[in-house]
């Protein structure tokens, strides 16, 4: 709960923006969704933005960023963008269903969906409100709990558009879905894209999400994604965050897994101002597999905070987390990994590892694994290490004639490579490898 006058004014700004636009909502005619939004804004007003004393935001001073004068628009501006402007941000060699969101809004013109198999839906969340109202009513807001998390509340209240992806039962998408979040603004802007991903029983898909800030101002993005992973479904979700240091980001990804499903996520952050990722997974039936990976390379004053939350509600599941960071300059990082194993969730294997390398004395990392285990027959482990590059390893390479900078680059690349090799979309993996290599000079 925040109480300062300044924050209150900030929150008031959102409430006012909401009130002046009540009619212009996602599927505005749908009573259920409209009610949800009204409840969400009320909840937002009640909770307020997090203060430093909130445990979940202890190391991320989000208030500092929010007090910057970001404009709040109920309807984000739809800026003119040429396809050619996006070419530098393509992933070389990636053959995908391309979805382009401009300031969070689905661009039919810039998207290139290609052949979409029968029954698969890739469309604007806004239009899906009308074309697939039943699906939206079933899934929208089901996993992103506006009553528990303030940014989720705010996003729910302001949802206008985003991506709706639906893969029906038994269908495997051969090509990945590449979602490009393009931001182009002519003022410092607060943006709130919303995605809904539904994978029915035995469906398979890979999603690659990248972001681009084309300039014009600073942005604060409050993104929420909901992911329904049906029984035996296999879903990969890759998030690449590299918008430059004018962009701040809070993401909430809420994943619900049904039995025997496999969900893999990798979040890679290469630049940004203040970034907070909340990855929440609920494996809600037996024999689920959950793999969460993260990598960030920070420099300057960038701040990257990864919070994961895996709630093992049912037995015989496995979760596996590996988060790594390389922090340069005065950059800061946070990892907070929560694993709950509820009383009836026996035979859970949950592993969590967080490793960070600090390249300077000024860089700071806060790492906090939290395991709460109420079942007795489980295998859980966690480990967190933060330190400098291994001196002995550096000496070994230098003793073979490699100059200090090459030796250092080689070791850092190898350190990051551990996460990158988990990426199962080859062109993306190659691109990430190249970015890392460019960063470290090897």
């Amino acid at each position: 709960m925040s109480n300062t006058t300044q924050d209150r004014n900030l929150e008031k700004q959102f409430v006012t923006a909401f009130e002046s636009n009540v009619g212009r909502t996602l599927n505005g005619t749908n009573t259920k969704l409209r009610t949800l939004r009204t409840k969400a804004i009320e909840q937002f007003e009640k909770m307020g933005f997090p203060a430093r004393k909130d445990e979940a935001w202890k190391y991320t001073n989000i208030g500092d960023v929010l007090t910057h004068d970001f404009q709040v628009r109920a309807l984000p501006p739809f800026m003119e963008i040429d396809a050619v402007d996006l070419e530098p941000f393509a992933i070389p060699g990636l053959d995908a269903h391309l979805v382009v969101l401009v300031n969070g809004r689905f661009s039919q013109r810039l998207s290139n969906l290609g052949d979409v198999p029968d029954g698969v839906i890739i469309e604007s969340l806004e239009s899906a409100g009308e074309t697939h109202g039943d699906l939206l009513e079933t899934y929208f807001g089901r996993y992103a709990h506006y009553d528990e998390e303030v940014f989720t509340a705010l996003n729910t209240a302001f949802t206008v558009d985003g991506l709706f992806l639906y893969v029906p039962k038994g269908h495997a998408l051969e090509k990945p879905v590449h979602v490009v979040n393009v931001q182009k603004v002519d003022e410092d802007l607060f943006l709130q894209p919303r995605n809904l991903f539904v994978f029915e029983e035995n469906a398979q898909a890979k999603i690659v999400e990248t972001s681009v800030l084309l300039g014009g101002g600073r942005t604060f993005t409050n993104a929420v994604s909901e992911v329904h992973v049906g029984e035996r479904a296999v879903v990969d979700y890759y998030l690449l965050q590299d918008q430059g240091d004018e962009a701040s980001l809070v993401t909430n990804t809420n994943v619900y897994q049904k039995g025997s499903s496999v969900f893999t996520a990798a979040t890679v952050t290469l630049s940004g101002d203040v970034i907070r990722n909340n990855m929440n997974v609920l494996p809600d039936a037996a024999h689920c597999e959950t793999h969460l990976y993260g990598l960030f390379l920070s420099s300057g004053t960038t701040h990257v905070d990864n919070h994961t939350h895996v709630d093992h509600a049912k037995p015989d599941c496995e979760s596996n987390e590996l988060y790594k960071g390389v922090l340069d300059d005065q950059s800061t990082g946070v990892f907070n990994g929560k694993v709950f194993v509820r009383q009836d969730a026996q035979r859970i294997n949950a592993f969590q590892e967080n490793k960070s390398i600090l390249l300077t004395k000024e860089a700071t990392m806060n790492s906090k694994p939290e395991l709460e285990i109420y079942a007795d027959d489980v295998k859980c482990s966690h480990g967190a290490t933060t330190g400098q590059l291994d001196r002995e390893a550096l000496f070994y390479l230098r003793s073979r004639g490699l100059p200090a900078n090459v030796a250092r680059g080689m070791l850092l690349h190898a350190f990051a490579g551990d996460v990158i090799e988990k990426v199962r979309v080859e062109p993306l993996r190659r691109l990430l490898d190249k970015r890392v290599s460019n960063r470290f000079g090897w």
Partner: protein
Amino acid sequence: MALLEVKDLHARIEDEEILKGVDLSVKSGEIHAIMGPNGSGKSTLASVLAGREEFEVTRGTVSYQGEDLLEMEPDQRALAGIFLAFQYPVELPGVSMNNFLRQAVNEQREHRGEDPIGAADFLKLMREKAALVELDPQLMSRSVNAGFSGGEKKRNEIFQLAMLGPTLAILDETDSGLDIDALRTVADGVNQLRGNDRSFVIITHYQRLLDYIIPDVVHVMVDGRIVRSGDKQLAHELEDKGYDWIREEVAVA
């Protein structure tokens, strides 16, 4: 002129003085063995020669090919032809043998003003040198030393030695932990690498390795100093009488 000339070398780590006046002169093509009990400073001498930063040289000089070795960075020393075979080779997960060695070979070539080695030549060179120490070529696609057995790690050191072709090779207890077959393999590899323009300093706790690699000079190091030097007979004498014999002699003198 000697290839390596160590004079009155003193070195310490933190507050502990380990080398207390080492004198050593190695000529081109010679093989020197340095023996001594645990803690006598043998490995420290190897580390200081290779440029390990934890050690601080407090007195003395080391000249290599007429240059002040102590002024050189570890990688400059390597490019100048010094090679240290580590007692405990470091595991480098994620760094492939291939990339690592190719970079190392190319750093040497660049230093000599040569073009980078071609892929086919590199492969050929690697196969040829791996055969010297019977190292499985499959290991080349793996990470450096990661998951290698103890014997594989030691053979990997000699393999790298062969790849880089140094002028002065320092073997820091390469024999420790090796079974007799592996020891023979390593020794055979070293013997094939002997030459008039390559010198070896072999640090060992036991005489056994010296049955296979015949040294020109044997030195005994005790308490941070070389207290006695002789030919290969000295190694046998040590094996029979033990290090206490030397200690007592030194004490009497």
